[in-house]
């Protein structure tokens, strides 16, 4: 269709065509269009089918919230046609449709409404119980909106996040919001302004009416320029607010363009004060077939024409209840649209100036009339208009029916900020009763209509917010222009009282001659009709919050906007209750739904890499995420790591164990802190020796193990397991928080790398890079030495045996680590040195029967349960060791889970880690780790099982049960001591 001639309010470039596809058809929009404006201009009237009855639905409002205007774009369902910017090459399709949206096969459901009363799904099909799955599947096939295209793995939109801090946040970039921002943005005050539309200006952006010598859009454009140029104001457009939370955290999202570097981003703004200027929404008029494509609220028709240069229809009829809609009728007529008649549900109270303008334009004005039914099968072809008592009914042919029942404040943001509302018999809306102290409201959301009053209310709110931040009038202002602020606020308060306040509103809810109202919709998203509302009340769900849930009013994507306060008004009318006694339904965030992917944010996989990462990668390391780190798990395709294991057992291997937690604790009370958190007697440490111990929590569960080394007077070095490194400082400080002890704790985990040299040739390798005496006498097992490596690189060296072989753990500065690694590599070449990864280490240590906290323990398991009670300094009560009372309490408890070793019986298979241990139907425990050992020649493992499975218990051996892919498998195993490999420890002491 040919566009209207561009005017100063036009936001599109009509001479820049943008081609796209609609249900496979090639059509054209233009630069600046939304999907909805382009479709409407191309003559598309049916955008999709409704949720329950598959009724044709079109463009009702341009704010992009109702389900009616949701479309699928490039395979992504549920995109808002009203707010999504048109891009060249988009493929747009209708939703909830079988076939063409104009003749949907399921449209027949529309005739079934008699059998689908309110609460239908709650009450039907639940009996007989066995029939439910059948009906459930059939209903699920019909229900839901849109189909996810699983052939495209995910949308590749660019996501982003923005975290803002402001002194004042302004929600809504209309004239009052902009005026508020400008008034508040004084020296030292940072203002953030959030506007849902892609431009500032609010409803004045498209109004050409002249007041005080200036056209309204000119005023709006002027303020927008001031805001954009203001150094203290950051204005985000296309940035809907999703909610206002505790202590003024304003959240929302923003749609970006190609130039922005993101497609949609999540933002949060922590503000000291918030000004809400969200304006109004049109309250839908309930009448028969009020959902026909071609029925729309006045702002939609008006904005199509004024902002998008799209002809909303050829011949229009209005059935409205507010002056702005009358202004829209006059303006549309001036743009060449044939306006046949304007019915105003108000018998009087219309702006005489607009009534005169309607008359001058030759438009029939019908005060006291409203639409009773839209005519036409797939789209509006006409309308019947009647007096409110239904006596005089008239019929008009039209393809555009502009309908509303008046206006209501858009209270969503205020509601989420904690404002309270009450019904006003004057405006017929729920208006603000009270606001939190640091939340202010301005503009039409307060009921104002007069342009000067709107702008003034914004300036006043800005000043009030500023004064609030400064501590109130009379307090010392932070700014230098204190007297002027004081004078200005006093002046503006006085001036506000002279300006017109909220005018009388329209209290109509539904049109005349409604009948049963079975095709008159209160809620378009889930096809909630007037009849359903009556049924809700009949069944006792007669207050708005109950009717909302039982009848599904306002639970769809439209949330509050449609049906808005109509639910409360309907319940009042149906039950004969005074509206003043009714509470409107609570508006819940998100006020406008962002994509979940946007809330989740960009897919940052942030992890740590050790200083030896690149070298391991070059040697074929296969990296896996392990806690905060990327670690080399394997060095070949053999995920059982036979070669890596064999090489450690026979020659020598190198492991990067840098993620190991490493800490220094020092100070006069350091030993007290160690005594508190470690379960052993830490006063018994010897210089040059590692003290192995464990930490428990207050319930006696083992949470960590590691070694502690005394380094000097009141100075200790200790290690923790890799995944405890991040919480160790918190743990120490928490458990000593009352004691006032003088100690310092330093996390050296990332500062120091750790290299584990393990295998019978480990000494031979290390000897080549250090002059230190490595003999078994000089540096025995469990010893600790500070040695110099290479040209004098300081290394903290521990002779430990986690993998069950002679081994040295070298802790060196992270920046020295690659060099030391290289030195060891060259030195070890003649001894067959090879790297090994986490999986080989896991198999090696399990073979030795060494536990990993979290693998051989879980949250129910105590220190005693895994056979490490020997670490516990039982007599010590003075240190108040964490976990000691719990260990005392449970040490004699019968039939706890205990850690055992097992050997899979001859001919048994290879069960998997995590398989359960059973006795008949009874679950006795589970397998922690199990592997096949080449060194032993059999499958070994460790399991946590109830005590009765052990020793003199009543169960002989273990029965391991698995059900992999529906194939049950039972494996028999015999309990053996969990020191499978080198039980005497001769190898690690050699």
């Amino acid at each position, binding site marked *: 269709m040919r566009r209207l001639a561009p005017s100063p309010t036009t936001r599109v470039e009509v001479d820049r065509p943008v081609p796209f596809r609609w249900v496979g058809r090639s059509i054209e929009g233009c630069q600046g269009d939304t999907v909805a404006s382009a479709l409407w201009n191309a003559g598309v009237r049916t955008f999709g089918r409704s949720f329950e009855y598959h009724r044709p639905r079109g463009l009702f409002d341009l704010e992009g919230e109702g389900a009616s205007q949701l479309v699928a774009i490039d395979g992504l369902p549920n995109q808002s046609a009203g707010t999504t910017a048109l891009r060249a090459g988009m493929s747009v399709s209708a939703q909830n449709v079988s076939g063409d949206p104009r003749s949907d096969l399921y449209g027949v459901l529309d005739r079934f409404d008699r059998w689908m009363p309110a609460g239908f799904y709650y009450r039907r099909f639940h009996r007989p119980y066995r029939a439910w799955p059948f009906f459930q599947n059939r209903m699920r096939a019909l229900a839901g909106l849109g189909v996810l295209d699983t052939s495209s793995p995910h949308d590749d939109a660019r996501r982003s996040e923005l975290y803002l801090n402001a002194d004042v946040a302004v929600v809504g970039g209309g004239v009052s919001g902009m005026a508020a921002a400008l008034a508040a943005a004084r020296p030292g005050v940072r203002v953030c302004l959030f506007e849902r539309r892609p431009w500032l200006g609010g409803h004045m952006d498209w109004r050409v009416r002249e007041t005080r010598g200036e056209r309204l859009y000119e005023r709006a454009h002027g303020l927008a320029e001031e805001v954009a140029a203001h150094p203290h104001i950051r204005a985000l457009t296309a940035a809907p607010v999703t909610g206002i939370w505790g*202590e003024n955290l304003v959240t929302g999202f923003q749609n970006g363009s190609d130039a922005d570097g993101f497609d949609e981003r999540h933002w949060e703004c922590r503000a000291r004060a918030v000004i809400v200027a969200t304006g109004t929404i049109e309250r839908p008029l309930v009448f028969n077939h009020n959902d026909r494509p071609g029925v729309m609220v006045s702002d939609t028709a008006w904005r199509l024409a004024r902002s998008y240069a799209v002809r909303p229809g050829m011949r229009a009829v209005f059935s409205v209840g507010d002056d702005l809609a009358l202004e829209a009728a006059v303006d549309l007529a001036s743009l060449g649209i044939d306006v046949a008649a304007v019915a105003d549900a108000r018998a009087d109270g219309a702006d005489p100036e607009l009534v005169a303008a309607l008359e001058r334009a030759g438009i029939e004005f019908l005060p006291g009339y409203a639409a009773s039914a839209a005519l036409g099968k797939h789209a509006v072809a006409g309308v019947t208009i009647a007096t409110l008592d239904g006596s005089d009914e008239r019929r008009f042919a039209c393809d555009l029916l502009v309908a509303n029942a008046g206006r209501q404040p858009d209270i969503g943001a205020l509601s989420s900020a904690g404002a309270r509302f009450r019904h006003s018999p004057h405006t017929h809306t729920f208006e603000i009763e009270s606001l939190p102290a640091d939340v202010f409201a301005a503009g039409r959301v307060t009921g104002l209509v007069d342009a000067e009053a709107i702008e003034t209310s914004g300036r006043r709110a800005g000043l009030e917010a500023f004064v609030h931040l400064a501590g109130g009038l009379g307090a010392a202002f932070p700014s230098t222009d204190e007297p002027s602020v004081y004078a200005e606020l006093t002046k503006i308060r006085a001036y506000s009282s002279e300006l017109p306040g909220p005018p009388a509103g329209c209290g109509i809810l539904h049109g005349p001659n409604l009948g049963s109202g079975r095709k008159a919709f209160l809620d378009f998203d889930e096809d909630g009709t007037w009849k359903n509302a009556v049924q809700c009340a009949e069944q006792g769900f007669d207050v708005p919050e109950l009717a909302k849930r039982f009848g599904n009013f306002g639970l769809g994507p439209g949330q509050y906007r449609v049906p808005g306060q109509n639910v409360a008004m309907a319940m009042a009318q149906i039950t004969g209750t005074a509206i003043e006694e009714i509470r409107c339904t609570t508006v819940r965030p998100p006020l406008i739904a962002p994509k979940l992917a946007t809330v989740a944010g960009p897919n940052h996989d942030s992890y740590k890499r050790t200083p030896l990462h690149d070298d391991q990668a070059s040697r074929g390391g296969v990296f896996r995420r392990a806690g905060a780190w990327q670690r080399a798990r394997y060095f070949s395709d053999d995920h059982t790591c036979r070669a890596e294991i064999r090489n450690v057992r026979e020659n020598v291997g190198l492991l990067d164990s840098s993620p190991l937690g490493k800490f220094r604790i020092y100070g006069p009370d350091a030993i007290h802190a160690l005594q508190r958190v470690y379960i052993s007697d830490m006063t018994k440490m010897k210089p040059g020796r590692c003290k192995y111990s464990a930490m428990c929590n207050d319930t006696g569960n083992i949470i960590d193990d590691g070694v502690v080394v005394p380094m000097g007077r009141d100075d200790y070095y200790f290690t923790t397991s890799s995944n405890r490194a991040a919480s160790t400082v*918190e743990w120490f*400080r928490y458990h000593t*928080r*009352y004691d006032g002890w003088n100690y310092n704790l330093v996390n050296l985990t990332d500062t120091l790398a750790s290299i584990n040299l393990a295998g019978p040739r480990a000494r031979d390798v290390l000897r080549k890079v250090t002059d230190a005496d490595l003999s078994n006498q000089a540096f025995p097992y469990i010893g600790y030495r500070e040695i110099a490596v290479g040209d004098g690189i300081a290394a903290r060296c521990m002779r430990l045996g986690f993998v069950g072989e002679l081994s040295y753990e070298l802790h060196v500065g992270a920046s020295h680590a690659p060099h030391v690694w290289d030195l060891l590599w060259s030195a070890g070449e003649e001894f067959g040195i090879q790297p090994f990864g986490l999986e080989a280490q896991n198999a090696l240590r399990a073979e030795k029967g060494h536990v990993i906290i979290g693998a051989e323990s879980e949250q129910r398991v105590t220190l005693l349960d895994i056979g490490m009670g020997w670490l516990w300094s039982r007599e010590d009560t*003075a240190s108040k060791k964490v976990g000691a*009372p719990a260990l*005392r309490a449970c040490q004699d408890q019968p039939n706890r889970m205990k850690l055992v070793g097992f050997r899979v019986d001859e001919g048994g298979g290879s069960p998997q880690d995590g398989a359960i241990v059973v006795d008949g139907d009874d679950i006795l425990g589970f397998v922690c780790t199990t592997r096949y050992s080449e060194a032993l020649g059999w499958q070994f493992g460790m399991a946590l099982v109830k005590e009765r499975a052990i020793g003199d218990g009543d169960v002989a051996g273990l029965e391991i049960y698995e059900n992999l892919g529906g194939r049950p498998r039972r494996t028999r195993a015999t309990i053996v001591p969990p020191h499978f490999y080198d039980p005497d420890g001769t190898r690690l002491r050699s």
Partner: protein
Amino acid sequence: MTFRLTCPVCGARDVYEFRYGGPERGMRPAQEDLSPEEHFRWTQFRTTRPAPQEEWWYHAAGCGVWFSTWRNPATNREEGPAT
């Protein structure tokens, strides 16, 4: 739900930065003659009421200090004890 807390070192920060350590429940009891019941009452029982209470917080994403502060769980505002 979101609010701010005042870290004694860093000042007012978003609650996301902190970890909750439970309401104040007194010093770790002496372990000499401590009955299991007393021990578990101290470790496990919490008394959160919708009134100002003293609580422990850890500034996890900040300076790493444990501190106690008075807060009203009903309003999520820092608020001193009722007088």
